């Protein structure tokens, strides 16, 4: 996981965002105004899969919520919404990141990649996706987008991992079906074909 995004920083981010929103609300109050209809707390721009997206984001909104419920990128899954399972893993500046545990507001300068952004323009699967198909890595598939993103992150850092290195690199992602062996087959195959 992204070492910059600790639980402490996440909580501090929530507090900071809340404070900003409160400040804005207080400005309206101080000027004797109610919040105007259609009031936008934060309209920000984030870079998702190479596209700059304008999105209305609440102060406490996580990146997973924004991706799924604002941008319709439902490939990113929420398994626990508390930083335990890894189903929501996306890449932020190439680093595997639990999108349930970072605030969208902290992503303004980040380059976000989700599972929807991996296929090439002509529809070819990314080598990790292709290898996961060949290895029949998924079972129920709910954790698979997170596993795919974790594998992509790993292979960008270490294009030819040993199986044990791959095991360590993928260890932030739980698979309740227990398909770890098949995911590792997929990672090793992706290293071959990538």
């Amino acid at each position: 996981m992204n070492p910059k995004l600790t639980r402490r920083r996440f909580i501090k981010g929530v507090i900071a965002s809340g404070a900003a929103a409160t400040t804005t609300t207080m400005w309206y109050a101080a000027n004797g105004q109610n919040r105007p209809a259609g009031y936008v707390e934060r309209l920000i721009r984030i870079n998702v899969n190479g596209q700059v997206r304008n999105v209305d984001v609440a102060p406490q909104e996580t990146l997973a919520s924004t991706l799924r419920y604002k941008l319709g990128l439902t490939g990113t899954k929420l398994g626990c919404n508390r930083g335990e399972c890894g189903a929501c893993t996306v890449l932020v500046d190439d680093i595997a990141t639990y999108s349930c545990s970072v605030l969208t507001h902290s992503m303004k300068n980040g380059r976000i990649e989700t599972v929807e952004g991996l296929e090439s323009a002509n529809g070819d699967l990314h080598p990790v996706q292709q290898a996961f198909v060949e290895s029949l890595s998924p079972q129920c598939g709910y954790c698979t987008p997170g596993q795919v993103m974790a594998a992509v992150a790993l292979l960008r850092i270490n294009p030819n991992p040993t199986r044990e290195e791959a095991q360590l690199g993928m260890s932030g992602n739980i698979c309740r079906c227990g398909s770890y062996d098949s995911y590792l087959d997929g990672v090793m195959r992706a290293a071959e074909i990538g």
Partner: protein
Amino acid sequence: MAYMHIGKDFVPPDVTGKVTGRIKYAEDYTREGMVYARLLTSPIPHARVIDIDASAALAMEGVFGILTADDVYPDGEPQSTGLKILTNEPTLVGEPILAVAAIDEKTAETAIAAISVTFERLPFVIDPLDSLAEGGPNAYNGGNTFAFREGFIEEKWTTDQVASFRAGNEPTAAAPTELAYGDLDAAFGESAYVYENTFTTAGYPHMSMEPRSAMAYWEDGKLYLHATSQSLTAFADGIAGIIGVAKEDLVFINAATGGGFGQRARAGSVPSAAIPAKLSQKINRPVMMRVTREEEFTIGGARQGFQGWIKLGFRQNGTMAAADLWIVSDNGGKGGGGDAFSATNAISIVYQADAVRLRGVSIGSNTAHRGAQRGPGENQIAAIVSPILDKAADELGIDRLEIRKINTPQNGDEGGVPQRTPFTSAYMPEALEQTAQLFDWAGRQPRRRQRNGSKVTGFGIGQGYHNAGRSGMDGIVMMGPDGRLKIHNGVGNLGTYSYASTSRAAAEALKMPWDSCDIITGRTDLHLPITSPQDGSNSIFTNTRTCWGAAQDMLTKMKEIAASDLGGAPAEYDISNERVHQIANQSVGYTYAQVARRAMELGGKYTGEAELPEDLAEWTQISVSRLAGSGFMGVYHDPAHSGNPPGFTVTACEIELDTETGKFEIIDVVTVAECGTVMHPQGLKNQMVGGVVWGIGLSALERHLYDPQNGLPASTGYWQSKVPTYLDTPARIVSGWVDLPDPENPVGARGIGEPSMGAVSAALNAAISDALGGHIFNATPVTTDMIINHIAGISEDWVPLAQNNFRG
């Protein structure tokens, strides 16, 4: 036998959707005008709702409505075990009391915070033995157990009887349930080695990755329901009744399910899916109910825990003479589960004991509701029995592999309690031998219990079993004028790919290239046949029979049409290369596209409009009636099969246990399936490696915990009742299979999902015991602290036989 499809890998059609994120789970759908439901759940483990004041909430802007138990049960809640949709009589913390629908979840949560619920607190209990003791609290209103035709009743022991059991003695109370065969006294009398002790197995949650979110809306009198389920038509059939909608008016959409493991096979285990359906009906808007991880823990069910006593007797030659069990099963807050029966059955079957008895009672606790979880009963007991079997082998001077061979079930044997049912086939000896070869059991033995610094090597071998097949379901195949085969399959998509691999039996029967086939599945308005729920490892056996049968019906009709049109008798025709043709002169025949067109011209029985099989299920009849006339149809009702189709597994493992830390590492694991003909090697391998991970969880990691003071769950997340991760699992798992056909299945196949886990937990607990010089913990999980305390000679500080909180 040379097959086109059976035993060959293929790419199931949903895999690409899984790796791209395009496949949709229930929560991924939206609908114009959709609003959001949130739940108010019980903060108290056992209570009665006296009053609900939602006036302030309902007056809030953006709040559309509320749903309570009074709405869903206008005639009163059913007075039986099992989860309710909503309840006024919660028996566990987190049980849903009401739901509120609002413009967004934040508003719904705010509204819920404004609702005042007055509860009457009732006594609660965490440990079933505390309830069993005279004067102890009852988990349910009216008793602590549920008796068929009697309802809730009280089952009580004297305080001394409970204390004696906790002290390690055979229970002396009369057992409400007793099942047996054989002469126990005589069998124990013949025994050269007898082991007797109490044991516990922990309850723990299923923790499927996808929380059971659901979305529903009504349109033109039909209910469209997106929900999570292991099964498709079997679930739809059941949830229609729970919601109270006619089967023909329900469209159940379930393209993929994020795990089930037994808890989502039947609608009764997921009644929460009815909440958005009922709310949507009430407020006339689409309703999405997102379920959190914590809520998933609470209403997602758990494995039954055992508080048991076991006595096993072995003759000098190593045969298991007798098995005697007394099991108090934890029924949790809502009842459910027959694990004790399954456990005893498994002992009868796997070890072929001559005399077996189960005495037992199921007692409620105000903890997670219980139900089937991967190998319910069989897998817990496999982990308990295996170290005892090793102890017997060592005492009798028999190799531990050999004692399993001595007791192995095989072709011609039977098993079960009290009725002993013959196996359809059984190749456990072959599985044992294959495992021994792959693992090099004999070659490793000189290193048994060898120390290397603080580490000691242990070996374990274990066996798993689950009944693996049913019958009596229906099949439908269709063919249009393009000659493509459409296989209508009601099997759920929970990650086993059995919806696809069973479909290949139809392609096989018609010698159809796979790329000329379409699997019709994922939503019930595509007109699917009824299937058995996808539990009990049955799908492969059950639904290859129906798919094969429907295709055979189409084949028979093809030959009839060709013979009628082109001359000769149907028996003089065969099929090849997507043609039905005369055997003597292959140039005389129809392509599949041509014969499908002729069938559609002829109509009647060829298009499902006449001469349908008797005994088609109501669900299938609805589907057939909607398909009738639209294409060439093969339709089939599967008769009952004979015997018990078993799924067997064998696992061997080597561990290195660190005597300074109590931790162990699995160095090697070999796991072998005996499940008849292999349908889909990659899919089978996935079940086997998944079984390894689940086996590790049962043996060493997973147990839920409840606060005995307040009844609060202390383990709602993945790291508390710890699910095995990559780092708890060996980097390499060797899997294999016997691959010999079963005569009761047209392609020889049986299931394997559940026993793939039992053999692993049996092998791992045996290996831990081996590394510790034969010490038997008589418990699952065997945790690091238990190991280190044993090594350090520190007496265990938990209450003996404690359940749901090991400190009592």
